């Protein structure tokens, strides 16, 4: 037995790896993915804990899911999150689409780099700085629209996330279809409406999905900008964590987690499809 093992080890040592391949890379990658997914697995696992304390396992149960679904505060927070994310998605995607059309199709013009910098500004500035700046701004002009303030802040930082996939799609699209439509006497508007928009749709859908996920997941900016009545789900989860750890938090988190994963998976499928479309 041990002879065979030695033999196998020796053979393995002798076998030359191709240039550029290194031993242990695969194992390292496995460890990497365990590190990346272990917390998520643990979180989901403990959401089925029947005990009152998260970390003391008290048997399997879905009681905490039922409890979370019946919790009025959670329901209200979910509604707020959905309202904010929907509004932010619609507005930021619309703004990003026309911005991307200009920047991808407008050729080179003065101010192009500046415009690009401005649109991607929310990506560069640390979130906490954005949060503080917007909080100061709303208080300085005395604007207090409750959820409206949160929606405006979300529209602002969602623009670059909606913008990126739309611009990428536009740059991969060739203009021959649009030229053909123009040659066949379509007006500028008709060309845009019946040729450009349908071709661009996968990019717009992908951008909207990213904006939605980013808005749903935002915590710091909402925490700072939102007042008493505008608690969104992540802000509510934060207050739950501070009050004490119960599996109810895990249950809520698990649901939110799977919503995000579902949307990102859909995004992945759409953007992959849009990639293969552009090739042809």
């Amino acid at each position: 037995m041990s002879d065979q093992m030695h033999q196998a080890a020796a053979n393995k040592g002798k076998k030359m790896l191709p240039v550029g391949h290194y031993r242990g890379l695969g194992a390292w990658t496995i460890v990497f993915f365990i590190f990346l997914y272990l917390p998520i697995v643990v979180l989901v696992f403990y959401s089925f804990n029947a005990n009152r304390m998260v970390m003391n396992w008290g048997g399997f149960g879905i009681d905490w899911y039922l409890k979370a679904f019946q919790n009025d505060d959670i329901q209200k927070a979910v509604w707020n999150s959905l309202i904010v994310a929907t509004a932010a998605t619609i507005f930021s995607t619309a703004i990003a689409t026309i911005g991307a059309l200009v920047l991808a199709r407008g050729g080179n013009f003065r101010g192009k780099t500046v415009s690009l910098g401005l649109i991607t500004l929310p990506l560069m500035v640390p979130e906490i700085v954005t949060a503080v700046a917007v909080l100061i701004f709303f208080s300085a002009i005395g604007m207090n629209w409750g959820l409206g303030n949160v929606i405006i802040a979300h529209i602002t930082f969602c623009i670059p996330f909606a913008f990126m996939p739309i611009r990428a799609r536009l740059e991969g699209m060739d203009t021959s279809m649009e030229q053909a439509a123009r040659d066949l006497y379509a007006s500028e508007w008709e060309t845009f409406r019946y040729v450009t928009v349908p071709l661009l749709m996968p990019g717009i859908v992908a951008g909207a999905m990213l904006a939605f996920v980013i808005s749903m997941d935002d915590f710091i900016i909402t925490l700072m900008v939102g007042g008493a009545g505008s608690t969104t789900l992540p802000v509510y989860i934060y207050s739950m964590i501070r009050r004490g750890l119960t599996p109810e938090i895990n249950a809520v988190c698990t649901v939110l987690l799977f919503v995000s994963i579902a949307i990102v998976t859909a995004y992945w499928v759409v953007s992959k499809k849009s990639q293969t479309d552009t090739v042809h």
Partner: protein
Amino acid sequence: MSDWLPKSAAGKRWLGLAPSYFVIGIFMLVPMIIMGVFSFLEPNPYGGVKPVGSFAAYVKIFFEYDLEDQLVFNPGYINIIFRSFQLSFGATLLCLVFGFPVAYYITLQPENRRNFYIYLVTIPFWTNLLIRTFAWIIILGRGGVIETPLLATGIIEKSLRMMYTDGAIAIGLTYSYLPLMVLPIYASLEKLDFRLLEAASDLYANRFEVMTKVVIPLCKPGIIAGCLLVFIPCLGAFIAPNLLGGGKKLMLGSLVQFQFASARNWPFGAALSMLLLSAVVIVLIFYARAAKNRAAMEGSA
């Protein structure tokens, strides 16, 4: 139908960009300018500011008033700022060491499998940061996933006290931003011409030299981009220091939040934000310079 559109190309262009300029200009650029102004005002004890000019907020970063009303050096805030840089640097390094081999491994895979790996890397990134950090409390905490089996089998006798330490914050930060390291490195490795590796090997470079003298120099732009994408959000992090550091081991981000939520010293919070923002700007300028130099070198080569 399109009569209302401006006729000239320039007119259309600015009409298309106007909404972006309006929203980001008014609700991001202007607020940052106001924040800059607020940092030079005096605080109102109930939150907000008094319209009196003052450098007090910036002085407070370095000095405090002692009992005799004398300004004395106070290292408290400087230490927090220094710790923020230290932890961010540490987390960036961990991400690089952990993420680079993975990005490289993914590049070696056949194309359809590569896409799937990248999908797996991005998934956690798009899920809620708060939730992912909360999961680490369950893992590291007292009676958590790591401790319980060790205690039960008698390997350790008392709690490891892993929570509320710098180590816990570093793990949390590394975990939060790891995908941001892997993705740009992968993007630049993907373009790597593997025949160069063969060539190096034929010229008697050993495996180590192939890696350090060919692969790493060629994907340096990706490595730099990854380091920036991790370092910048780490510096302003709020969730990891708050949940895993227990709110006592502050970092710059949590210190800023504290000034607005509890301490009610808005100018000081604004001044700290300005400090954070300038650190980011300095890092970005270095990055832009490096990119420009590289472009110039490639142009002349």
